[in-house]
């Protein structure tokens, strides 16, 4: 099992490398000339062509893209993620300061997703094709098709200003995160509900459930003991995909609820054309997604006992 796990994790290395390459390319296609930006940062100096050329050489911009990628990569590994075009601050530091906010909103969203969709999906599976199933199916589709930014504005108006259930804005306590997390998770709740329903239905159709019922075990005990555990594995494997969706979607939510996270940072950077921040944001979010997927893989192996014995499979390369 250990070698299997290592091999699974090893397969992430090319993905990680490819992701950094993609991020590097984002910098290449950006219309700004970094040398020019650095030289004119004080807002007064207008560098001559020779000065610019010298600076470009000094920054390594006259080298081939391959060489630039290697030195950029080395810098990234040493924590030199570049400096902001606007205020000259270190990109990594700025991003790391905003990271906890995004992580906490995303975690809150995941909490809501699990809180709502696992039981609701189970209800759907139990009442398969009856009215609760149909109603919840419609709800799940509605949840996946509602524009979150629109929902967020309405929810803020109704729940925060009119009913005063949640605080309107601010960041600091858990209470501030409840609503943003919920809104962020809305689409995922709908999707996971359906996933949980289908997974549970598949499990319930299996023979061992039939055996358990034949033994006379109460239905809800079977659902709880056999069904949920097995369908949970399916959900966990897909959760990796959903978390990447949540991390991306967090940008809009953070902006609307004015939370000082990565999303707010990058949207401000987009307005200001601050390319290093945008590039760093993609790199950071990409790394996080890949690490989450690695974690999911580990969890998958731990949850699925058969895999521990099975060892490696020849053709499996994800």
């Amino acid at each position, binding site marked *: 099992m250990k070698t299997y796990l290592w091999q699974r994790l090893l397969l992430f290395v*090319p*993905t*990680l490398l*490819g*992701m950094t*390459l*993609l991020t590097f390319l*984002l910098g290449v*296609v*950006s*219309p700004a000339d970094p040398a020019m930006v650095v030289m004119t940062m004080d807002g007064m100096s207008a560098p001559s062509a020779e000065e610019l050329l010298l600076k470009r050489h000094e920054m390594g911009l006259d080298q081939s893209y391959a060489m630039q990628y290697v030195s950029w990569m080395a810098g990234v590994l040493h924590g030199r993620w570049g400096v902001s075009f606007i205020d000259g601050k270190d990109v990594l530091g700025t991003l790391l300061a905003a990271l906890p906010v995004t992580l906490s909103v995303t975690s809150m969203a995941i909490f809501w997703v699990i809180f709502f969709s696992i039981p609701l999906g189970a209800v759907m599976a139990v009442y398969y094709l009856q009215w609760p199933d*149909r109603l919840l199916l*419609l709800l799940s*589709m*509605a949840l*996946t*098709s*509602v*524009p*979150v*930014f*629109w929902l967020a*504005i*309405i929810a803020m*108006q109704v729940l925060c200003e009119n009913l005063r259930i949640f605080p309107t804005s601010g960041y600091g306590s858990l209470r501030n995160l409840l609503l943003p997390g919920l809104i962020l998770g809305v689409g995922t709740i709908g999707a996971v509900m359906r996933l949980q329903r289908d997974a549970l239905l598949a499990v319930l159709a299996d023979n061992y459930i039939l055996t358990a019922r034949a033994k006379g075990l109460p239905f809800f005990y079977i659902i709880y003991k056999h069904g949920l555990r097995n369908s949970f594995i399916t959900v966990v494997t897909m959760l990796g*995909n959903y978390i*990447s*969706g949540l*991390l*991306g*979607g967090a*940008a*809009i939510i953070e*902006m609307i609820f004015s939370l000082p996270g990565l999303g707010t940072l*990058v*949207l401000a*950077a*987009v*307005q200001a*054309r601050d*390319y290093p921040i*945008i*590039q760093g*944001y*993609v790199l950071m*979010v*990409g790394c996080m*997604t*890949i690490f989450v*997927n690695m974690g999911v893989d580990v969890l998958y192996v731990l949850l699925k006992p058969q895999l521990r014995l099975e060892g490696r499979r020849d053709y499996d*390369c*994800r």
Partner: protein
Amino acid sequence: MTADKWLERVAVGVWAFFFLVAALAPWLVPYDPAYVDMQHVLEFPDAMYWLGTDSLGRDVLSRLIMGARVSIGFAFVAACCTMTAGLFIGTVGGWFGGRLDAAVQMIINVFQGIPGFSLMIALAGILEPGFTSMLLAVVLTSWTGFARVVRGEVLRIRSEHFIEGLRALGAGNAFILQHYVWRSLLPVISTLFTIRLGAVILSVSGLSYIGIGLQPPLADWGLMVNEGQTYFRTYPLLLYAPGSCIFLLCMAFHILGESLKRRFVSAGRVYK
């Protein structure tokens, strides 16, 4: 079953309604959607302006109708490009296999390693905002979904016996792909295409809302939500009208996609 049929019909109805509105938009709009009329700023609905006017005195109904044209038109173009790219890359990987397939899978993994919406923000931020960069952002972030499914399906079809039968008859790759493989993919592709249409509308409206999607002279629903949010406490229609349009249309696409999927599953297609 009747409830499903009923729902399906409503969804088709909604879809057809929006599609017709989008197609006939230039002839349907009562006013020029971009005409700024400072005499009639922020008016409530009346006989003249059925849905009122916005903060610049533009007719909300006209902007909604034009918005349908922009949203649906863009979604179609983007979904078509996405489908073509995904179909091509997925087929190459699944059909030819070996190292080529490994490379295709790796590229797919790389693109899936970055959250789609984040990459969209970055691309829209780095390129000049507008139609083309929007298209590029959407296609680059969503082709992987198509490619993955297509690759899996092609892999499955490739191992079917009738493919070997065709080869024995003398058919080449191009012939088999064109007449058999893509034909067999049609149900899967059409399902994904429908769902993708809804997803594109949703993500583009999100990007337009935060101001890096389609740009102001265009009447996009996401932009309308953005412009309406300042005044919506007194003029709620400015927010509710475009938002519910996005919602309804996406919902219709979703329901259609799900029912297509169910139909093909019950027809015995292996489908994920």
